[in-house]
């Protein structure tokens, strides 16, 4: 109660701001400069935390989006034979699906002008398309390649590459590169080789009817893409909810095939797991820096206390209780921590903007597969940084206040030998 009195806070304000007309001539005011340095250091600490996390979230989001769009938001592995069966399965989908593609996978080899590379070839087709009928014409097998893979092979869009699918077809296929894609994650882009299933079926119907008759590849299934307006594919919980709904729906059906579902995160578990670990470590390291910075704020409170020790002892002598005293230092720490952290968030945000606009924000696409520094200023994340900075300063100030409140007032006031 005492700590909330008007004059007490006015006095705190006077001490913090130290208007010259109130101070006796020649009074030392180290406190004001020390509080500035402390607030600045907390601000920079929080700024660093904020910037690092938003860069990290930026990469994370870019890569997640890339992986999700390349591999499908949810993958359903199921040993399907005809599209009709799959269309039946799709009727059990919960709401939110925009597009469904069929796929099969098979280990293959691509040989281009500059070299060859073994990759997992994927045949991808629209589920909506009719089951291919034997064709008379033999169009090229269409192939979509990740840009880094095409570069490695020495081929460009429009060119051809030899495709070997041992175990699927005996002979090599001359495939035409219809498109080069870049999803932003090297791990995906350097191995991305997508055969257009319709063109492959048409080709097989002429050159290898036996292959045409069965579904090729070792792994088969559906790649499900959500309508982002209904289900944000990066929202892990919503994706999980969809999967749960789907599993429940097919439980009571006649569907006779083994079916497993994987979300995009699970498809690249290692990459995202590694990223999560990186993020955690970085957050811990910079979080520790922020704690140090918060203690700087408290160090400046120590300076305030050292400079004003006689007055504080006088106040305690006059009956300011230990609890009120602690409440006071705690509130000062809270206020300083909050505003310094808030400033730090703005600094982090501003620095991020600046970095994105400046040449420093341009990334070598060869290294990162992303051309500009991705930034995602996630509000919940930034709010927790703000809370963290404020909490550190508050906690440190409370600890300080509690120990300072135990001062020997008689000694401070010079009434003890």
């Amino acid at each position, binding site marked *: *109660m*005492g700590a909330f*009195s*008007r*004059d*007490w806070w*006015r*006095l705190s304000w*006077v*001490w913090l701001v*130290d208007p010259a007309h*109130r*101070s*006796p*001539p020649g*009074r030392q005011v180290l406190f004001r400069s020390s509080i500035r340095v402390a607030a600045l250091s907390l601000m920079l600490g929080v700024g660093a935390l904020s910037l690092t996390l938003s860069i990290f979230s930026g990469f994370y989001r870019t890569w997640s989006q890339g992986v999700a769009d390349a591999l499908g938001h949810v993958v359903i592995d199921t040993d399907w034979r005809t599209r009709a069966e799959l269309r039946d399965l799709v009727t059990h989908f919960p709401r939110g699906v925009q597009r469904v593609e069929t796929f099969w996978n098979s280990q293959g080899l691509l040989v281009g002008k500059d070299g060859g590379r073994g990759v997992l070839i994927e045949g991808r087709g629209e589920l909506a398309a009719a089951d291919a009928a034997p064709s008379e014409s033999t169009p090229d097998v269409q192939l979509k390649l990740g840009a880094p893979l095409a570069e490695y092979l020495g081929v460009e869009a429009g060119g051809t590459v030899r495709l070997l699918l041992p175990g699927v077809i005996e002979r090599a296929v001359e495939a035409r590169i219809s498109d080069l894609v870049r999803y932003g994650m090297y791990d995906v882009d350097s191995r991305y080789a997508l055969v257009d299933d319709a063109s492959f079926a048409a080709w097989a119907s002429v050159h290898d009817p036996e292959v045409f008759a069965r579904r090729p590849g070792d792994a088969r299934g559906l790649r499900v893409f959500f309508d982002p307006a209904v289900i944000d594919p990066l929202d892990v919980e919503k994706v999980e909810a969809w999967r749960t709904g789907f599993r429940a729906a097919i439980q009571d059906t006649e569907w006779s095939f083994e079916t497993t579902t994987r979300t995009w995160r699970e498809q690249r578990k290692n990459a995202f797991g590694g990223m999560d670990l990186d993020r955690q470590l970085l957050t811990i390291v910079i979080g520790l820096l922020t704690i140090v910075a918060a203690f700087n704020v408290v160090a400046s409170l120590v300076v305030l206390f050292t400079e004003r020790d*006689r*007055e504080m002892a*006088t*106040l*305690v*002598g*006059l*009956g*300011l*209780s*230990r*609890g*009120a005293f602690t409440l006071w230092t705690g509130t000062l720490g809270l206020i300083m921590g909050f505003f310094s952290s808030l400033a730090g968030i703005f600094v982090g945000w501003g620095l991020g903007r600046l970095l994105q606009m400046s040449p420093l924000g341009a990334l070598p696409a060869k290294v990162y597969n992303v051309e500009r520094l991705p930034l995602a200023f996630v509000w919940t994340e930034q709010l927790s940084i703000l809370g963290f900075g404020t909490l550190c300063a508050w906690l440190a100030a409370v600890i300080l206040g509690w120990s300072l409140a135990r001062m020997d*007032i*008689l000694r401070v*006031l*010079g*009434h003890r030998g």
Partner: protein
Amino acid sequence: MEVEPTPPLAAEILLDARGLHKTYRGGGEELRVLRGADLQLRKGDFVALLGNSGSGKSTFLQCLGLLDHVEEGEILFGGREISRLGEGDRADLRLRSIGFVFQFHHLIPELTALENVLLPSSLAGRRDKAWALELLRLVGLEDKVARYPWQLSGGESQRVAIARALVNRPTLLLTDEATGNLDRPRAQEIVDIFAKINQNFGTTILSVTHDEGLALKYGRRLRLKDGIVGEWTGD
């Protein structure tokens, strides 16, 4: 409802200190400053406590004012044992019931005279500007309420400190060599103010002084010697 009858004598006693002991230890030496000091103050008493330098007057007063702890003995204040209270209750008693004036005024330099006087009342949640101004008038500083302590003389600062000690209307005022830094006329003025406070408000006052001349202005004179309080005999 049944009301407990209060013994008439006990009602008159404000402070009853019994067998106070205090020993300073340090550097392997023991200094037994208080050795069973007793003191009884009635409501409205106006008492001077004399004693040689180093006899333990300040120690005694600080223990009574809950600025320090006794090792043995008890202090009854208004019939309530207060020497073993927790820190929060001690602070509350210092804030509301026991005023203390040191030899040095210990005013907050960044606050004006009036703000300094108001501070304890504000801390106690009963800020009363009119009363603070009245107290400043009582100590003769009505025209200097907006001055900062460093714009006041030593005697004037001490008078502000007295007004501050009184702002929460304590029943007991303890002063420790409050006139020690002042010249004779200034010191006389201060003691006159104490007398006025004692008469106007009925505040019980215990003043430590080593000035026997000033002590004569008080209603009762005690002496602290060998760690025990006795009547001052004037030798």
